[in-house]
């Protein structure tokens, strides 16, 4: 069964549904699209008039309404965060400190969980790779680097350091550092709120 055998009006409807379903977990999305495609191919003969096709679509309802019925109710959400989901959230945030491996483990848990949509998973992956560890590492390098440069050992004397911060307070660096620390925390909160009920 392909969209080629569908009535043009039905094919257009299915395309709208496909787009509206982007936020669903992949297995639910696939299943729903198969069911609706079956419905359309059975209810609308390819040679039917446009009016007949539209009548069937009216009964079927708006794609958005169907997606809303497939999407878990917001008040069901708190029960959806199982051990796996919490482990994923914590590992993504702090796992980077466990030689980086912890973050990878968090990533695996994130992508194998059914509790999040693909979009949520990308957010969890990209904000910020390595979690808090990345922010702290970059922060330490940023603070440490200019200071070291200005430390000079005078022959036979005590090493002399000038205070780098007084020369160029790296406001931009501080902002970037703050973002790198805040972003993973915000992402964790977001993922915790978005976790859908376990199937």
């Amino acid at each position, binding site marked *: 069964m392909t969209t080629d055998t569908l009535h043009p009006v039905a094919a257009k409807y299915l395309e709208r549904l496909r787009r509206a379903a982007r936020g669903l977990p992949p297995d639910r999305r696939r299943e*729903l699209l198969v*069911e609706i495609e*079956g419905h359309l191919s059975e*209810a609308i003969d390819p040679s039917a008039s446009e009016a007949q096709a539209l009548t069937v679509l009216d009964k079927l309802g708006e794609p958005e309404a*169907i997606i*809303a*019925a497939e999407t878990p109710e917001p008040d069901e959400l708190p029960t959806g965060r199982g051990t796996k989901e919490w482990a994923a959230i914590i590992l993504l945030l702090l796992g980077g400190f466990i030689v980086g491996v912890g973050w990878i483990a968090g990533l695996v848990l994130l992508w194998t969980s059914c509790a999040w949509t693909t979009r949520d998973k990308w957010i969890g992956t990209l904000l910020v790779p390595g979690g808090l560890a990345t922010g702290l590492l970059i922060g330490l390098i940023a603070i440490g680097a200019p200071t070291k440069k200005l430390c000079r050992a005078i022959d036979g004397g005590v090493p002399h350091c000038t205070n780098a911060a007084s020369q160029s307070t790296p406001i931009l660096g501080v902002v970037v550092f703050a973002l790198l620390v805040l972003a993973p925390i915000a992402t964790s909160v977001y993922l915790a709120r978005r976790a859908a009920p376990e*199937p």
Partner: protein
Amino acid sequence: MVAKVRETGISQLRRGVLEFCVLALLRDGERYSYELVRSLGDADGLVTSEGTLYPLLGRLRREGVVDTTWRESPSGPPRRYYHLTPDGQAALDGFGAEWTRFRDSVDALLRNGAFR
């Protein structure tokens, strides 16, 4: 605002009862998705959007009150046939008894303004 609250109430009632209507349709044997959806869609005042029944069928399957088998169709793509599980049968029996009491009380109240 008040109208909206009422509308939500009706749609919640509908949603709560619909899953048992699916189970009841399967009482006498298996049916495939499109058949189920059309039967429910044709009933007066039961369903506003037939498409929203497909997510409901998926949920019933995940809850284990129905089970499915794919079969070839004489024309077109394979069809997914639904049948009741023992859990589904028990849920339907339980609902049948509750519904009768519920319906009688509400009917009496609407008719007489009192429960008797």
